[in-house]
């Protein structure tokens, strides 16, 4: 790792100032992604601003919404009673990610900000538009088995690796941020970006802006939910494809559906057309098949991930069936 200076500010304003005013300064929370990237030479930061002592660790209900501080640990969030009872989909998604050791370090804010696992992004001897803008994309003509099938561009076909974020996208969460110019709220699905021709930008957070919390509005998705993660080994591996499903089934009819996928796009991928196709329908295998077909219509595969559209289609059907029969 390169050498860097270290500050541990006592309050939010000092932390934001420290990053806003220094071009190469970064926040550090759990450190599980940032230090990994710094050891690999992908990120070089000359100042780390440790935010771990800031008071952003609460989980509470406020006006019906579940307010989750940005420094809540992934393991604590997954095990929290309010999450397990009111948003079990989030709990399942969190437990599908990383290992218990890593979840004991990883924070909500850090998880949202984690960078792609594209191997060309990690390998500093390779071209990568995300790491070094305009250097080219190693993955497009290279090994792209793990890469996107939705929303990719000619500049970048990387995927966002988070599991937690897929559940938060499905649950219509809000992101609360505070920066040098004040505070704002960003709908979760607008937080991460598609690559377009600026793949160096993963999300819409400004320089010096700090995620302070995530809020999940109250919903009826407590029972018929499922997080399906398909990967190369049974645990402790990133998703090839993952599916978050939340259904509100009443009297044999799907009142509302939420569907999002991981491992398939540069951001957690909501499937609004498929959700619409399910609303008002019976939870039958045939309706699930139709919805999965709609969801994967626009899929575009590359040389080594030709299997992904079919895997996505089957995974959506399986996840819907698991959710419906709970």
């Amino acid at each position, binding site marked *: 790792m390169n*050498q860097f200076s*270290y*500050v541990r500010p006592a309050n939010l304003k000092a932390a934001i100032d420290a990053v806003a005013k220094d071009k190469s300064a970064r926040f550090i929370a759990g450190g599980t992604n940032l230090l990994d990237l710094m050891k690999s030479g992908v990120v070089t930061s000359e100042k780390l601003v440790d935010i771990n002592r800031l008071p952003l660790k609460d989980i509470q209900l406020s006006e019906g919404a579940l307010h989750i501080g940005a420094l809540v640990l992934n393991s604590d969030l997954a095990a929290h009673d309010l999450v397990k009872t009111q948003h079990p989909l989030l709990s399942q998604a969190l437990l599908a990610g990383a*290992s*218990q050791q890593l979840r*004991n370090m990883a924070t909500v804010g850090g998880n949202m900000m984690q960078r792609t696992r594209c191997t060309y992004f990690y390998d500093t001897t390779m071209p990568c538009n995300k790491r070094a803008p305009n250097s080219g994309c190693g993955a497009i003509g290279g090994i792209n088995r793990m890469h996107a099938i939705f929303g990719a561009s000619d500049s970048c076909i990387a995927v966002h690796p988070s599991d937690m974020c897929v559940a938060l996208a499905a649950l219509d969460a809000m992101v609360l941020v505070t920066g040098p110019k004040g505070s704002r709220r960003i709908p979760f699905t607008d937080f991460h970006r598609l690559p377009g021709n600026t793949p160096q930008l993963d999300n819409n957070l400004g320089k010096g802006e700090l995620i302070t919390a995530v809020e999940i509005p109250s919903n009826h998705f407590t029972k018929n939910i499922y997080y399906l993660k398909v990967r190369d080994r049974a645990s*402790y591996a990133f998703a090839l494809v993952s599916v978050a499903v939340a259904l509100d089934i009443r009297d044999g009819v799907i009142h509302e559906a939420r569907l999002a996928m991981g491992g398939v796009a540069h951001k957690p991928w909501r499937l609004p057309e498929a959700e619409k196709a399910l609303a008002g329908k019976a939870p039958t295998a045939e309706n699930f098949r139709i919805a999965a077909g709609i969801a994967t219509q626009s899929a575009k595969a590359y040389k080594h991930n030709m299997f992904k559209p079919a895997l996505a289609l089957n995974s959506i059907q399986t996840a819907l069936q698991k959710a419906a029969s709970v």
Partner: protein
Amino acid sequence: MSAENDQHPRDKQAGRRDFLKQSSAMMALALTPPLVIKAAAHDEAIAGIFEKMPVNMEINGKKMQLSVEPRTTLLDLLREQLALTGTKKGCDHGQCGACTVHVNGRRINSCLTLAVMQEGNQVTTIEGIANGDQLHPVQEAFIKHDGFQCGYCTPGQIMSAVACIREGHAGSPEQIREFMSGNICRCGAYDNIVNAIVDVKSGGKTV
């Protein structure tokens, strides 16, 4: 273990002196020395690029005043500065679990956290779990069930297993496999590791 001797006071003093000098020179901070020291002792702390920084930690029950560079990981502090080499470096990237230690009672990968981030925390390593000459029940079970071959992953496996049982995640072999997945064993001793954990868990001993 000469852990404390490795940390001669001279080192610390020098660190702090450099720290003051450089903070004012490099960062043009108008801080008076007493203020800086006070800040370092509380939540606000600062260390320049080439400076060492004072850190207090309790390691295996011993209170220690240390001095580290900001970029030193907890793993490197334990192994290189304190000679606690039981904790292993496998991948140095969070991918193998060989570096697993407990911080404030919870298992973490010590390769992906900075030592300076652990100010005021209690760290337990494999060297700290036996009771004198009396092995920890999980250590005994690993021997009884042949829970290792080369032994390189074993300290991490044992630290993880102790935490897994304490967390209440050792309810069944399936649950053990899932919650021990952060510890890779290249020798493939997995079955015996699971048996060891099941044995401790069903034996009802406090771990």
